[in-house]
């Protein structure tokens, strides 16, 4: 029997039971649709967080403390102050390193600008040169601080403080230790893309405000930072600096490796590597959620199988007629498989459309950039077709075994 004929006859059977076929297909549509929607949403979120970084042009190596997340995916970074001034100087001696910008926060409770105040902000230390080295950020007004008593605020903080902050204005920061200081705003900085939790900040020079100290294994007391941003002269030096710094922090010479907790590691990564690591976690989470959505697909598959079995029972007489006029077992199998296949394909196409549509709406609502997960769409279509075939196999086999004598005798 020609495949075209099977398609024609099967299509007739499908359209002959429109409601039933529709309900069957809905199972697949929802299954595949939810997988695609999650993939769109996950991909868009990842794109939103990571996509704006010009990873290729960032000439920096990050030294951070990382550890496992309890019972979850991936890793988290810790801000324990373990990188001492001694370590900073050691890294700065590596060939190709332009300078090291130690990162740390100064605990603060409130920032005030005139009558506007906010409590949700962070005071970070920075080196003036870091602002110009960062290719994904720029000053919207002013410039980096040059002296003690000056500070850079980012656009988010400027917004929190009523907006329209101009260079030269005063802000007052209340630190957790009770001291209050006034800063003159030297510049307002916009980072095109920021990792979650780094926005809404005041940037001040480390000296004289940052004074977190630790006791080193050498018996001395030293200022220590949460992480280090190592700026490199040129992109060519990046990997050499990365491996040299990595070696230093695992050589036994650094203070940090003696201070780091046993369950945490010192990670020395290029920006690219860090983003890849984060991206991997996003993928894992997305796949995990889509896997749960896959249960819906399984239910859809069972639905198809169930409907097909009912359909075989209902059409026993028709199967008998077809056998009487010369249909072989394989013709009958073909007919029912094609029917299941058509349901699977329709379900897959509908699911992809539903998934992209839902994803588009959710992504638009969340303000993420829209992405089209082509690879997952292709996978989903094949899964739909596979689900159709697998769930059609048993009913088709049952149909092929119908005894035409019995079938024709039925009323």
């Amino acid at each position, binding site marked *: 029997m020609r495949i*075209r004929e099977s398609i024609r006859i099967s299509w007739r059977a499908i359209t002959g039971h429109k409601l039933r076929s529709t309900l069957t297909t809905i199972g697949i549509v929802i299954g595949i649709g939810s997988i695609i929607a999650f993939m769109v949403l996950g991909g868009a979120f990842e794109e939103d967080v990571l996509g704006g970084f010009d990873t290729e042009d960032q000439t920096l190596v990050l030294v951070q403390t990382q550890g496992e997340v309890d019972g979850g995916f991936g890793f988290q970074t810790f801000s324990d102050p373990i990188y001492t001034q001694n370590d900073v100087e050691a890294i700065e001696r590596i060939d190709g390193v332009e300078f090291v910008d130690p990162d740390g926060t100064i605990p603060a409770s409130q920032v005030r600008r005139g009558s506007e105040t906010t409590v949700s902000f962070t005071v970070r230390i920075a080196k003036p040169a870091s602002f110009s080295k960062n290719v994904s950020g720029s000053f919207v007004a002013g410039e980096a601080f040059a002296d003690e008593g000056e500070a850079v605020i980012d656009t988010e903080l400027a917004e929190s403080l009523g907006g329209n902050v101009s260079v030269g204005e005063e802000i007052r920061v209340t630190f957790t230790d009770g001291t209050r200081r006034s800063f003159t705003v030297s510049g307002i900085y916009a980072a095109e893309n920021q990792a979650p939790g780094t926005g809404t900040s005041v940037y001040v020079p480390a000296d004289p405000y940052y004074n977190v100290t630790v006791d080193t294994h050498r018996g001395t007391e030293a200022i220590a930072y949460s992480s280090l941003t190592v700026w490199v002269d040129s992109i060519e030096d990046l990997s050499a600096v990365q491996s040299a710094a990595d070696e230093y922090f695992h050589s036994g010479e650094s203070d940090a490796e003696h201070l780091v907790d046993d369950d945490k590691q010192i990670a020395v990564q290029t920006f690219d590597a860090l983003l890849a690591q984060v991206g991997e976690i996003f993928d894992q989470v997305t796949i995990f959620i889509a896997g749960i959505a896959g249960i819906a697909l399984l239910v859809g598959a069972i639905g198809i199988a169930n409907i097909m079995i009912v359909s075989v029972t209902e059409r026993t007489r028709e199967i008998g*007629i077809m*056998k*009487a*006029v010369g*249909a*072989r077992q394989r013709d009958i199998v073909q007919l029912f498989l094609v029917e299941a296949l058509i349901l699977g394909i329709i379900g897959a196409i509908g699911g992809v459309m539903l998934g992209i549509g839902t994803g588009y709406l959710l992504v638009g609502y969340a303000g993420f950039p829209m992405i089209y997960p082509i690879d997952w769409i292709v996978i989903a279509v094949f899964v739909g077709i596979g689900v159709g075939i697998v769930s059609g196999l048993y009913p088709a086999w049952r149909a092929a075994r119908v005894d035409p004598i019995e079938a024709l005798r039925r009323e």
Partner: protein
Amino acid sequence: MARTDRGGERTGTGVVAARNVSRTFFLGEPVHALRDVTLTLEEGSFTAVMGPSGSGKSTLMNLLGCLDTPDQGTIEIDGRSVGDLSGAERARLRGREIGFVFQTFNLMPRLTAAENVSLPMVFNDVVDADRRERARTLLERVGLGDRLDHAPNELSGGQRQRVAIARALANEPTLILADEPTGNLDSETGREIMDLFDELHAEGRTILMVTHERHIAERADRIVTLVDGQLERIEDVSDVVPSGPTVLDDRDAPTEPDGGEGA
């Protein structure tokens, strides 16, 4: 079409034959549906099979129609022994060599008249254009040239049976097997259907018809009577005195499907 290769030399041995055929069903105890039946159908012959319910008529039809295989003996169609064939080959043979006409019509409900007639050709891999042309010709032949695209439920009983007859002719079969073809029809429509069978007979087609009704059976060349799975007698119709339209066995109302044996 497919039948042009058939030579006349087989006329002597019969184009379809059952030789010493037995068929036993096991339903708690063995039921001998057929016992050592030998029947030869000459090319162009019209044979009626009569007998009470449970006499083996349907079993004989199923065997000759390649829906079933005998426990003993052989079924030969156009010189080929059916017993040696695989299931798929038997299905093929059935599609090409046998045209079924049933009491309950057995049309595919979702296919149009023309598509129903085409169905045996679909399974025989006849190309689409030829199929459509032939379906049209056959439906015109049975007087339904204006009903090609009607669904079975848009046709009367007599029209449905005509579609079924057209379908039976689709692959130019060696044998037309008709099981109570007038059983579900009123007597007037039944007569029209029998006229159609007469015409097919006159065209030289080989027909075997199972019936309860003597007056229907008497339109055949000869009447084979089965009793308890055995051949009771074979009468040439020209030898017997025509009788009125009486029912042979009042236990079998003609509207009831013949489902005694094997059920």
